[in-house]
């Protein structure tokens, strides 16, 4: 099975380290970034299936990073992590393309559950896309054959 990759963005190194250990222990490939810039650079170098974005970063707002990443890599799953939930930043996060919204401190079990769910959603979406493409190709071929038959 192909290993999934996850990018964690947080300015707290201890959080990065501990989350990395947890996710790695479940077999994920984990990348980390401490700033918004670093996160953008890393996501350009490598395709990540999912990103955990802290809502407060030293160089930009987490929501800003979210917008940038959503534009660049729309198929990447993005989960916002917030120190304190409020209706405003929850709504804003979702509007800017977040796929989930969780609150610190989060129980690692819950985090893993959400990550797993989102990756599954992604897989299914991709499968759907693949099926659609296959369907389209199939229809296309049928049409070509029909056209040829008329000749």
């Amino acid at each position, binding site marked *: 099975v192909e290993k999934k990759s996850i990018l964690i963005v947080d300015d*707290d190194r201890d*959080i990065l380290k*501990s989350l990395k*250990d947890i996710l790695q222990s479940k077999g994920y490939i984990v990348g980390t970034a401490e700033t918004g810039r670093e996160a953008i650079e890393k996501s350009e170098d490598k395709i990540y299936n999912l990103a955990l974005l802290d809502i407060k970063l030293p160089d930009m707002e987490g929501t800003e990073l979210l917008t940038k990443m959503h534009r660049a890599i729309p198929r990447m799953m993005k989960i916002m992590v917030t120190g304190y939930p409020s209706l405003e930043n929850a709504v804003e996060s979702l509007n800017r393309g977040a796929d989930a919204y969780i609150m*610190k401190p*989060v129980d*690692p079990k819950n985090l893993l559950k959400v990550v797993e769910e989102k990756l599954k959603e992604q897989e299914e979406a991709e499968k759907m896309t693949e099926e659609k493409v296959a369907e389209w190709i199939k229809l296309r071929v049928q049409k070509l054959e029909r056209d040829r038959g008329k000749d």
Partner: protein
Amino acid sequence: LLKHEVEETRLGAIFSASPEAITISNLNGKIIECNQATLVLHGFSSKEELIGKSASKFIAKKDHKRARENLKKTLEQGPLRHKEYTFLTKDGHEFCAESSASVVKDASGNPMGFVTITKDITERKHMEEELRHNERKIRVLFENLPQKIFYKNNNSVYVSCNENYARDLKIKADEIVGKTDYDFHPKELAEKYRADDKRIMESGKTEEIEEGYIQDGQKRVVHTVKTPVKDENGNAVGVLGIFWDVTERKRMEEDLQRYSKHLEELVEERTRKLREAERFAAIGETAAMVGHDLRNPLQVITNMVYLGKEMVQSMPSPCRELAEKKGVYELFETVEKQMEYMNKIVSDLQDFAKPLKPEFVETSLHQLINETLSMVTIPENVKVSLVIDEDFPKLMVDHTLMKRVFINLITNALQAMPDGGQLIVRLSRTEEDAFISVQDTGVGIPKENLDKLFSPLFTTKSKGTGFGLSVCKRLVEAHSGSITVKSEVGRGSTFTVKLPLGKEVS
């Protein structure tokens, strides 16, 4: 002949020396003799200027007729005394004097003439006039003063009063003589007035008294000045009193006092609120910061506990069993429990600091309370009852915030009953308000703590943040409501949330 006789008598000497003017005239009124005092009285220098002249020449014309008539009367009826006439001096100045006239008779009893004694009374008249004038002035003052005035003797029996007082008593001023306070005033007041009189006469000192008074059946307050009146030996012979109505003034004074007290209280209250607001703002800022800053370390510890548990689980079984035996899971559990607790503190802190934006939704509080009770672990030794008024309406509240309030209140109530007891939640209403009360039969709150109970950071619990009730207060106030507490040490506490029914739906 007459002259001769006079000179012969011993009276002659008296006649000359008398300080009063003595004139002798004949029956026709011609002056035939006068003394030195007569000359002085009329401003003459020698007798010759007077003798032989008609006495009427020295009386003002307006009195001539009366003088003649009086002389006639003297002749017929005997001496007439102290008749006042206006006399004239040599140079025509008028002056006032009184005359007494008698008839002079000869040896056989036939009238020969008149002896007239005249006394200048200008000064006396003047004094009398002045006295009358003064008396009038005093009378005018006495009657026209807006104050009520009375005079009582040393037995507190009225001697006189002014019309103003008499009007109050519904009598005429002169009818007061011989009356006492018992005749006009209620017994208690009369006794009081008389006791005051007695004291003042005994002490000999003027007193100013504010006292009750009944006028037209209405209670008034009057200001009375009572002065003892003394005789020449210094013995009190009566009391002079003057008083006036001060009811209005008193009322204004009281109003003013009340207003100023109210104002003071208002200023105090404002100052207190301002100080409280400042304090809350500072606490809020700190709370937000602390809350936020604690989130990351909490996350790291949570992660580490998770990793630690995973680590133990992934150990080869002999090692894992040993670790289990040594109690590593209990250890993790304790850490997790404390974490949960810290997490709650952080939430409380942030709740407190968070600006409130309640979203009012029609809510059944009955349901909300049930939801709350299902979220809280109720110890077995606590009996819960829910008492709800039949007509308790649905209310417009913020579901989440109100639930928070009930969670805090119910949690507190349960914690107050470590040895079990009864928890009663009541929903009731009046015309204007809805009441939700949470009552426990727990340890109760000492009086000195009741005031501070809703202040942030105040707590009596070993693990309390002191935010629970202050958050409740904030949340309830965001609903335009209020929260109060009644408590008795050893008997339990009742917290009551009052919400205005303006937000009532049905």
